């Protein structure tokens, strides 16, 4: 009935404003958030002491038995691509298949991807289990799928080996991760700064759902140390990094510590802004695992050498040790397009764990025998992790609960602290230590 008439020009401008806001929301929605470990493109120059033929029992002999079908599910969307992880698991299986296989059986590995759509994540899991009929799930790494699918996996009798992101990847009976995820990694970074005698801890994170869950750990650890704690959130992508860095430093105060839990590009914005404002020495800086990339170390330059302490869930990619050397060899031969870094390290370890577990299966490879074999994994030792990895029957799984600290030096990350246990002030860590104490064989004791 009523029509408001405004001048044509103002109406045009109003429409354009509406379009602009709509565009902004669209572009913002396109921005990915990656809270897992980052890739790492360093060209390492380390003497390799193993060959890619060391991943199977019969060197150079292709496996010809009935294939063992396994699967993995990963997030892959613009700006957030975790598919490198199962692709590296697949690379390891290719190496196994070329060198005798698992008791003569090759692994037929299927990778599915999802775009952080719960419906799609659920249907991809069903596709793997019901259509592809995979016998086991290994190599998965998705932002949401652990939360969406863990009950379905439980109903179906699957014990998943994953590189987790969602809280359920660390809090359920049927998912065990090779990494420790953003909460416990932030715990580790907080512990490091407390050891470096900071007067206060400020945790800065993305303003996205789930950050309250992450904040609980560092807050408990800081308060247990008798220090004040403050949690800050920044909308991502960060549009005014200078102000964000200033806010964090002012909140921490002189002699305080700032722990960042961001993707590498967002963390870099804050660190670079801090440097340009002369703030890098006002506080001590820590970061959760995503900062552990040589890409970030290179982008930061020498000004941050020894001034940023990053929690590292895995060994340095340059480590000269049997599994680290094999990892680089397998990647070079079977997946040269995948960058060296924590993502591919995780994929490699999962392939190794699954292969070793399945070697012990007596009789046919069935869904039951494969998942029982995964559940039975205990005291799995690798130089890529600080402690033995295990699965076992338990209400929750956090087998990776001992970490290192790395720091930038000359454009790469180098070790600053050797392996240390994540604090059991965090209740989940305490519960896991209790499980290890109850069954010491899980960790080889």
């Amino acid at each position: 009935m009523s029509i408001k008439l405004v001048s044509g020009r103002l109406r045009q401008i109003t429409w354009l404003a509406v379009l602009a806001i709509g565009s902004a929301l669209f572009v913002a929605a396109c921005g990915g958030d990656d809270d897992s470990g980052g890739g790492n493109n360093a060209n390492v120059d380390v003497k390799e002491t193993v060959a890619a033929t060391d991943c199977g029992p019969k060197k150079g002999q292709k496996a010809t038995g009935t294939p063992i079908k396994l699967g993995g599910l990963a997030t892959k969307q613009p700006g957030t691509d975790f598919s490198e992880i199962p692709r590296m698991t697949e690379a390891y299986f290719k190496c196994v298949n070329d060198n005798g296989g698992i008791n003569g059986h090759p692994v037929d590995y299927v990778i599915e991807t999802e775009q952080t759509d719960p419906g799609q994540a659920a249907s991809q899991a069903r596709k793997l289990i019901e259509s592809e009929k995979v016998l086991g799930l290994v190599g998965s790494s998705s932002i949401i799928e652990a939360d969406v699918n863990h009950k379905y996996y439980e109903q179906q009798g699957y014990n998943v080996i994953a590189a987790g992101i969602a809280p359920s990847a660390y809090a359920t009976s049927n998912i065990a991760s090779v990494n420790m995820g953003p909460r416990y990694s932030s715990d580790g970074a907080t512990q490091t700064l407390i050891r470096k005698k900071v007067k206060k801890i400020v945790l800065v994170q993305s303003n996205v759902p789930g950050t309250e869950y992450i904040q609980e750990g560092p807050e408990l650890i800081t308060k247990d140390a008798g220090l004040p704690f403050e949690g800050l959130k920044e909308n991502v992508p960060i549009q005014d990094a200078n102000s964000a860095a200033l806010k964090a430093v002012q909140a921490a105060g002189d002699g305080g510590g700032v722990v960042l839990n961001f993707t590498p590009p967002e963390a870099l914005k804050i660190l670079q802004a801090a440097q340009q404002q002369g703030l890098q020495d006002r506080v001590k800086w820590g970061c959760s695992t995503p900062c552990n990339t040589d890409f970030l170390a290179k982008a930061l330059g020498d000004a941050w050498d020894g001034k940023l302490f990053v929690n590292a869930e895995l060994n340095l990619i340059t480590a000269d040790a049997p599994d680290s050397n094999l990892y680089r060899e397998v990647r070079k031969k079977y997946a040269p397009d995948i960058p060296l870094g924590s993502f591919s390290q995780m994929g490699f370890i999962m392939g190794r764990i699954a292969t070793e577990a399945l070697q012990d299966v007596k009789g046919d490879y069935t869904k039951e025998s494969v998942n029982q074999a995964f559940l039975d994994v205990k005291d799995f030792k690798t130089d890529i992790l600080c402690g033995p990895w295990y699965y076992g029957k338990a209400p929750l799984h956090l087998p990776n609960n001992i970490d290192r600290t790395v720091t930038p030096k000359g454009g790469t990350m180098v070790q600053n602290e050797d392996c240390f246990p994540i604090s059991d002030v965090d209740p989940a860590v305490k519960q896991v230590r209790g499980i290890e104490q109850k069954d010491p064989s899980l960790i080889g004791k």
Partner: protein
Amino acid sequence: MPSWDEFQPFIVTGLALGGVYALSGVGLVVLYRATGVLNLAFGAVGAMGALIAWELINNAGWDEYPAYGICILFGGVVTLAYGLLFGPPLANRDPLVKATASLGLALILLGTMSWIWSDKARSMVLPTSNENFMVSDVLVNYTQVLGFAFGVVVMIVTAAFLRYTGLGTAMRALANDREITATLGVPVRRVEAAAWAGSGLLAGVAGLLLSNLVGLDATTLTFLVISSLAAALIARLQSLVVTLIAGIVVGVVNAMITPILSISEYRDMTPFVLAIVALLWLSRHREISISRSA
């Protein structure tokens, strides 16, 4: 509430960002006045120029300054090419259609950047960021000074150009009435091409400065055009002086809200809130008539 001492550094960061918003806003307004196109690809063009410069410096071994030149040139060339290709067929379409078409360019560039450069961490530190001085207790670097100064200088130079040069007069004439201007013998296509190229060069400069002041990230830089757009809309896509002031106000208000923790999370709304308040204020005396057709 933070103390005045705590607020001071935020004024510096706000002025620097506000200057670049103003610079970008001027580029948007000049193009809109000459062609009727609100270029939503402004940020994406600058972002891609900055990433190309980063690639040339870090992977092709170029010196910094020629790479910066390529960044600015890329902005000019891509924007001009878009204008030459899509300007004429869209010339008589509604401004909303023209703006939406430029959004298409923004999304193509954004997709291309995601494809080529993925989401790894990169940084662009201009040499001016390594030089700084103290104002009171606040460290100010010369990139921040440049950000603010460029905004002011570009506004003054552009205003003088539009006022005192033949090409500028032709652009103003086009803004008033394209048909009459063409009838009078003004080479419309050439004048529009100059506006596209000039606006594109400013996109390149803004991309370069913002890649240092904010971060070298395709999504962020593409997204930042919104703050400049708010400044241009506050100026009703007309006044360069108001665009300058609005850009600086957006930058400073945004930065000043940061240390106020209770509202800090909502500070990204600043450009929208200011633009809406300004548009409501500007329309307060407009005649409203209500009609009902039989």
